């Protein structure tokens, strides 16, 4: 009985936390007026989508180190459709997700059977392949010059991208939806299967779980949301080029996710927020930023390999232990 109450209480606590966060997000623009800070929040939210999407195949044991490739597919598809075909931006965004999902499906059928480091490397290589293709096919993609003048989404003629505040709300809606959707998948039967597969292939098979199918599902969902993030980014920044989708950036997202905590749904959120804030606060170090960042990053991952989500618990335990003395 006590155990049930504890679970119900912790669920309630979680729900309170979430509601609190949503409330803060809702009224944020009232307190944060600077377009610069709003920009940072928007970009952080978009990265959160990507980091969260990244986590899903990770649960099944596949490190998608080149995840930014799917974002690039989404970005270019959406941008090109909106610009060259004059397609409505919302439809273009959806198309971007769809194409990216289809690509994930096709690729997944082939590459998901590879495991561990090899898979990670493979995705890195696919990212480079995509980047080189973008550079080469100048007529379609603009090559190295990229795509300029990408339009923003509009609602009944109202340009959502003209001012930061409307786009902020759009981004929040999209981000919250993405996180919620992926969370629900994690909590569903499919999610249980993901966990099982991630822990042991052999046992999962014996349990009757169709490993390949679930891995593919995780990969495709991750691809779709990565594509969403890419499309949103392109329509927000109004410009994209192959320089925006590099291995460095893909690795940066990995860092966000791992530092936050790869075992928890809050992990990517916490990691991205903390590290993005840190980078912006450390702007003063100018050209020394990578040094400072590296010096901070290494101890953090050494002491908290499971991520910062475990930090409050560790601190409170440490405090409790001190009190006992």
């Amino acid at each position: 009985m006590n155990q049930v109450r504890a679970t119900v209480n912790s669920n309630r606590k979680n729900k309170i936390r979430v509601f609190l966060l949503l409330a803060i997000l809702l009224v944020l623009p009232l307190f944060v007026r600077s377009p610069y800070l709003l920009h940072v929040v928007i970009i952080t939210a978009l990265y959160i989508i990507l980091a969260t999407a990244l986590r899903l195949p990770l649960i099944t044991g596949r490190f998608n180190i080149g995840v930014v490739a799917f974002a690039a597919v989404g970005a270019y598809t959406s941008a090109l459709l909106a610009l060259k075909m004059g397609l409505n931006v919302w439809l273009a965004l959806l198309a971007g997700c769809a194409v990216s999902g289809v690509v994930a499906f096709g690729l997944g059928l082939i590459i998901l059977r590879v495991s561990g480091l090899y898979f990670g490397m493979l995705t890195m290589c696919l990212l480079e392949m995509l980047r080189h293709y973008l550079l080469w096919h100048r007529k379609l993609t603009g090559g190295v010059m990229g795509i300029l003048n990408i339009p923003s989404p509009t609602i009944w003629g109202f340009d959502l991208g003209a001012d930061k505040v409307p786009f902020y709300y759009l981004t929040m809606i999209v981000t919250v939806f993405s996180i919620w959707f992926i969370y629900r998948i994690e909590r569903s039967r499919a999610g249980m299967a993901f966990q099982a597969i991630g822990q042991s292939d052999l046992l999962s098979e014996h349990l009757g779980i169709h490993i390949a199918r679930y891995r593919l599902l995780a990969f495709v969902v991750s691809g779709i949301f990565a594509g969403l993030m890419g499309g949103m980014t392109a329509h927000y920044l109004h410009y994209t080029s192959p320089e925006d989708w590099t291995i460095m950036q893909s690795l940066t997202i990995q860092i966000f996710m791992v530092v936050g905590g790869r075992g928890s749904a809050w992990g990517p959120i916490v990691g991205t927020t903390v590290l993005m804030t840190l980078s912006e606060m450390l702007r003063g170090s100018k050209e020394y930023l990578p040094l400072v960042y590296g010096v901070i990053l290494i101890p953090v991952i050494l002491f908290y390999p499971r991520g910062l989500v475990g930090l409050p618990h560790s601190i409170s335990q440490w405090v409790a232990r001190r009190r006992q003395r």
Partner: protein
Amino acid sequence: MESASCCSWSPILSRGKTVQLIIEMTINGVMLATSMMLVGLGFTLLHSILRVVNLAHGEFYMFAAMLVWYFMSHFHLSYPLAILISMVIVIALGLLVERYALRKFRGDLLSGLIVSMGLVFILQQGSLLFFGTETKNIPSAFPGNVAFAGIQISKERVVISLISLAIIVVLIVFVNRFKAGRAMRAVAQDEDAARLQGVSIRYISTLIMALACGLGAIAGGLMAPVFMIVPTMGLPFLLKTVIAITLGGIGSIGGAVLGALIVGMVESYVSTLISIEIAYIALFGILALILVVKPGGFFGTPYEYV
């Protein structure tokens, strides 16, 4: 402006002299390959035996090259001495990193990745700021050309290829004949069994890291006069190298050589016949293909660790 457009089949072939072209492309491929072998070997040792992924391996290579330049230009040391000293420094650095950072993450791919990313940031930007922003060069140790089958090849590249092959031969002998080498293979196969046999994992870890960093440092020192030294020469080079060893089979020395040759040949042939961009696409495509068909590469054995 696309180069000789991929879709119109290669104009260069229409100029005749096909045999000479093939010889040239093959030689170029071998040259490309030898530049990758040493670094690739270091990485493969680290990965297969120590089960760590060290993305900063390319940065060690770059750092070694920077140090060689630094000692030659600021302290006027001779080329061989500079290489020696930079080897010592890089190995020392690598041992520190292994002991305090990488050892903890053996088997944990993702954490090791993140730690090595931190190292990449520090080494790359640190080198830029400490050694200066200018591109650096070292005068060639073996200037001049040598003619081979009607084609001009730089003497330096030939020497480097020979040295690389010599080092590889020594390594193969070491791994097969000497006790330490066999201990390495034992750890690669089954760590617990090796422990039971009395192999000290700590000793092997140290040895492997020293070996890997040493190889990377020699490669950096050797390649420094051939190319130019910039802080960003680490990662792209490492990626190509990793493709090579993955193709050949991680954990296998012969695989590293074979993989490097394949990569070198593909890059050489496709770059010449079509264009460099297509060469990269082809390279990654081949890797994808091989990995899917035979995940361990040609000579390697696939294994999983989370």
